[in-house]
Structure formats: C-alpha cells, structure tokens
C-alpha cells in the first residue's frame, strides 16, 4: 500500500474513532454539565436569598407569617423558608420528591439551614428534574453538528497536507525506481524538497545509481580496452602461424601442430571478438533503426545453420506470423541473438530432436518469440547464471555456453527486450524473448 493511502486511511480512521467516542459519551457529558449547572444555579439562588435576608430581615419573606413558600406557574421551581429545631443542620443538594398542591413531582432540592435571631431556619430551593434535562437533546444535536463540520474540515486539511508532504517521495519513486533503464542517466537532477529525510533518500539513491554506473562503465571500458589490446598479439600469432604453414617443406607432424595452434589462436580470437562485441553493444555503437520481419530473419538463420540441423537430424518447426514486423532494431544484432539461441538449441539437443520456434502477441500488446528444444535441459541451480559471461554448466564436460548467451543478454538489454528461460533436465529448454509494445 502506498504511503499516502496509508496516511489517508489512518487519518480518516482515527477521526472517525474520535467522533464515535464522542457520540457515545455525549449524552452522559451533557447530562453531567446540566446537573452541575443546576447545582450551581441553586447555590446562586440560595446566596441571593441569604443576601436579601441579611439586608432586609426575614420578614421581607414572611410578611408576618411564620413561614414562606412560593413556586412558579408550572411548578418547575419552588422556594420554601421555614423555622426548624435549633439542633438541625443541613447543607445538601439532593434529588427528592415533593408534594405541591396534590402533585407529586421529582425535584432537585437544595436544603440549607441558617440561624437568624437565634432561631434556626431551613431554606429549600427546588427545580424539577425534568426541566434540568430539557436542553440536553438540542444541545447534543448542535454539538454533534459542530463536531462533524470540524472533523470534515480537519480531514480535508490533513489530506491536502499529506499530499504535499509525500509528493517528493512520489517523484523519487517515479524518477529513480520505476521505469528505470540501465545504464542510468548521468547527472540526475535532485528533487526539490524541504523534508530532510526525502532529501537524504534522494541523494543516497543518486549516489548509488552513479556508483553502479561507474562500475558498469569501468567494466565496459576494461572489456573494450583489454580486447583491443589483445587483438594485436593475436594478429601477430595468427599471421606468424599462417606464414609458417605456407612453407611448403613442412613435414606432416609439424603442420598438424601448427594447425592445432591456429585453432587455439582462433578460439582466443573468437572469445576476444565476443567480448568486443559485448562492449560495443554496451557502448551503444549500433544503430537501432531497422525494420525486420522475424519470419525472414529466422529463415535466413535456418539457411545459415542448415548443415548442422542435418548433421544431428533435427527437425525445426517455424511457426512465426508472416505479418509480424519489428521496428527500431538492429538487424545484425537480432540475427546474432536468435542465431545464438538456435545454435544452442541444436548444440544441446539430442540426435533426431526437435526445435520449435513460435511467436504470439500478448494482451498488453507486447510481442513474444519462444524457442523450445528437446535437449538436455538446464539444472535449476544453473538457470540464474547462464546469461553470465563465461558461465559453464556441468552438464557435459567440455560443453559450455561460453559467451553466446552473454551476447544474447547484452543485445536484448540494448533493445529493451525481456529474456526468460524455462527448462527441465532431460526434456528441454525454452527461451522467451519479449519485445515491448511499440
């Protein structure tokens, strides 16, 4: 999952959890607040009554009577003032029932005793519990409404910020990690960001890529230089042997020895030429502008290699579409690529074996060519390394892949082709070359 998706999900999820918690807690909270507030008003009212009593005397309420009582029209509130025994002491707020004019109602009642003129009085102020909670519902709704607006607002702000925050990361991934082509571009531009973590990541990636490039260039230059340097001594050896052999008075033994030496020099030459070819491909010295029909290419290769097919009595079946066309390629290199693969398919085949060459278009528009043989196959452990230079498998003593498949790999890389190989020991091997959609 992408980082921005994760962050989005997390932010939205955590906010929703908070909303849920708040919704669950809201009735309780509102009730609590209402109850606290009621207690507070009751105390305020008590203080008011006491202030009035202190100022104006009890008679202000009693008006000659020995107690005082009053309630509002709907009996939502009442107040009562009456003398009590001198040893009674109260200062409470409690929920209790009161009978007012034959109605029994639930009240929150403040009871408070105080002394006046050495007499003990009890003050009671009450509020119906129903009226305490009358604002709870609208309050809840309003609070919920405000909350939801706030949450939506913060989510929007968060997401915008997250997007801006991770944008450099997306750029790093897009330009460095996906769709990268080897060798990497030199002097890559740094991605602009004020986040030091991303900066560091980007710098490290650029550094790593340039190090890989450098190693690749070094190897490429070495291969190129070494094989060039080797060509001159090989030339001298080859020509000296040629001159020796053209001496007409040679006895047979010596001329056979010279032939052996020529073969060895030739082998050395071919290895060097192969390395040079690889280094030239890696140096991009070939032009990729030709258009070829794979069917014709295969026919040409088969003609070239026909004698070897006959020698081993191998049947080759060519099932390639006559309409298929490859564009932007180098014909010589593709000839070499498929020649090497078919050559291997013969070399590692059994006597009277078969080779199948076929093509198909994949759903994504890519074009695929497969070459299957009925040969000895390649052990699983060797499959990963057969494209490496000078890798030999242990199948048969003296038979190796040499540089043939290394050449295949470099030509494929040069043309942005994918190579894959499947094999079963004793049954055969299939090489697949995939051309990207044009």
């Amino acid at each position, binding site marked *: 999952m992408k980082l921005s998706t994760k962050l989005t999900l997390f932010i939205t999820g955590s906010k929703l959890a908070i909303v849920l918690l708040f919704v669950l807690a809201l009735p309780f909270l509102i009730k609590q607040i209402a109850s606290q507030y009621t207690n507070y008003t009751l105390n305020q009212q008590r203080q008011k009554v006491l202030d009035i009593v202190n100022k104006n005397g009890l008679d202000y309420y009693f008006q000659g009577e020995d107690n005082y009582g009053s309630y509002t029209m709907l009996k939502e509130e009442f107040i009562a003032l009456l003398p009590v025994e001198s040893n009674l002491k109260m200062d409470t707020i409690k929920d209790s029932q009161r009978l007012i004019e034959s109605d029994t109602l639930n009240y929150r009642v403040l009871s408070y005793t105080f002394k006046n003129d050495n007499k003990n009085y009890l003050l009671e102020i009450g509020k119906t519990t129903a009226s305490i909670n009358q604002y709870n519902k609208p309050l809840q709704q309003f609070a919920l409404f405000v909350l939801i607006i706030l949450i939506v607002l913060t989510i929007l702000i968060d997401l915008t910020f997250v997007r801006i925050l991770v944008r450099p990361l997306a750029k790093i991934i897009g330009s460095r990690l996906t769709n990268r082509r080897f060798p990497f571009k030199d002097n890559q531009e740094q991605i602009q960001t004020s986040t030091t973590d991303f900066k560091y990541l980007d710098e490290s990636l650029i550094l790593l890529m340039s190090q890989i490039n450098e190693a690749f260039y070094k190897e490429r230059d070495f291969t190129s230089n070494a094989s060039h340097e080797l060509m001159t001594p090989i030339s001298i050896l*080859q*020509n000296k042997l040629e*001159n020796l052999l053209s001496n007409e008075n040679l006895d047979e033994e010596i001329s056979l020895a010279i032939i052996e030496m020529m073969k060895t020099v030739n082998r050395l030459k*071919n290895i060097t030429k192969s390395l040079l070819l690889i280094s030239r491909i890696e140096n991009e010295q070939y032009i990729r502008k030709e258009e070829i029909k794979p069917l014709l290419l295969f026919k040409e290769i088969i003609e070239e290699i026909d004698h070897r097919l006959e020698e081993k009595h191998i049947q080759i079946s060519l099932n390639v579409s006559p309409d298929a066309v490859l564009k932007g390629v180098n014909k010589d290199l593709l000839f070499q690529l498929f020649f090497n693969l078919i050559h291997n398919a013969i070399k590692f085949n059994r006597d009277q074996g078969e080779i199948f060459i076929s093509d198909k278009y994949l759903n994504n528009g890519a074009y695929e060519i497969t070459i299957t043989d009925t040969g000895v196959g390649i052990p699983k452990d060797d499959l990963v390394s057969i494209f490496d230079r000078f890798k030999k498998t242990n199948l048969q003593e003296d038979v190796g892949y040499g540089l043939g498949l290394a050449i295949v790999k470099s030509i494929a890389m040069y043309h942005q082709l994918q190579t894959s190989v499947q094999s079963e020991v004793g049954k055969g091997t299939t090489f697949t070359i995939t051309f990207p959609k044009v």
Partner: protein
Amino acid sequence: MKVLIIEDEKTLAYEMEAFLKKSFYLCDLAHNFAKGLEQLELNKYDFILIDLNLPDGDGLEILKNAKKSNPDAAYIIITARTNLKDRVNGLDLGADDYLAKPFYLLELQSRMQAIARRKFNIAEELIPIGKFNVDLQKRLIIFEQQQIELSRKEFDLLSYLLLHKNRVLTRVQLSEHIWGTFVNDDYDSNYIDAHIKNIRKKLNVWADTEWLETVRGVGYRIKK
C-alpha cells in the same frame, strides 16, 4: 605490384611482407605516420595498406594525403577499431576495402586480388578446374554449358579455394572467410567439411572432383 604497408606493429608488418612476397608483391614498410607520408612522396604504389592507429597520427589523414599523391593506388584500411564510424569514414575517404584485426593474411591477399580485378580491369575469363569452368564475376560453375546450382556459401568456399589454388587452406581460414565479422564461438565445428561434402556431391554428378583435395588434418586444396 608494389605495396606500401603502413603499420606501427613491426612484427605484424614483417609477417604481412613475408606472406605477400611469396605471391610476388614488392613491399615497402613504414612504421609510423611520418615515415608513411615520406614513402608516399617518394614512390608510386599499387596497394597501400594503412593501419589507422599510428603512434604519431591518424591513418585517415594519411589516406587523405595519399589520395593526392597516389590517386590510382588501391587502399585497404587495417584497424583494431572496428566501429562503424571509422569504417564509414574510411570508405568515404576513398578506401577500397576495410580489414579488421586480426585477419588472415590469406584474406588480405584475396581482398587485394578482388580489388585488383575490379580496379585494374584484369580481364576475367572462365577459370577451368578439372572438367568444370568457374565464372567468378557471375558466380557460376559450368559443366559443358550446364550450370550447376551451388549455395551462396558453397560458391564462396569454392572460389576462395580457387583463388588460392595449390595452397592448402585450413578450416579456420575458410570459416573466417565465410563468416566474416560474424561472431561464432563454435570453433570446433565441422561445417566446412559439410559444405565441401555438398560441393563434391553436386559436382560429382557431372564429373570427378579429384582436383578438390582433402589434406588430412589440415584442410583443403584445389590442385591444378
């Protein structure tokens, strides 16, 4: 025929000289850029072989200069740098052929023969071998007015042996000629034998091919 070999690798120049001498070419050697220019001022040559990598200058410069002093000569560029650009440059500047190191001296000689035929208009008649006649220009082999079909490679082989008649050509020399610059690391293959076998089979239908000899362990020769 006079040949100037401009090659800084002395051993290589000597080997080329030794080989060409046997075919009655007269050779002068120049081991650097300056010496090469000097020789070109002093003498006229039929063939000029130029190594591009000289210690004191670019062989292509020599080619440009030599074209003025020796306009009728045939030029063959020899180099270890086998990239396309050099090749195109060389041929653009008027070189007749291009050989990549390492090459077989035999190949060098047959290129020179081919250029000579082309350039100096050496009239080419039908070349007889045994009871057959070979037309190198039209790439035909004929037995009493009857054309015999050979594949491209088979004809290449036969004509190469014919150009170097009475000389034993080894399998590696022959395969190098046939494959050219194509890289094939299958050095021990016997496809030359397969081609020779086919040539014999096709020709034996009409007449014997005793002139095409197998030299055991070495290679093949056309004897005349």
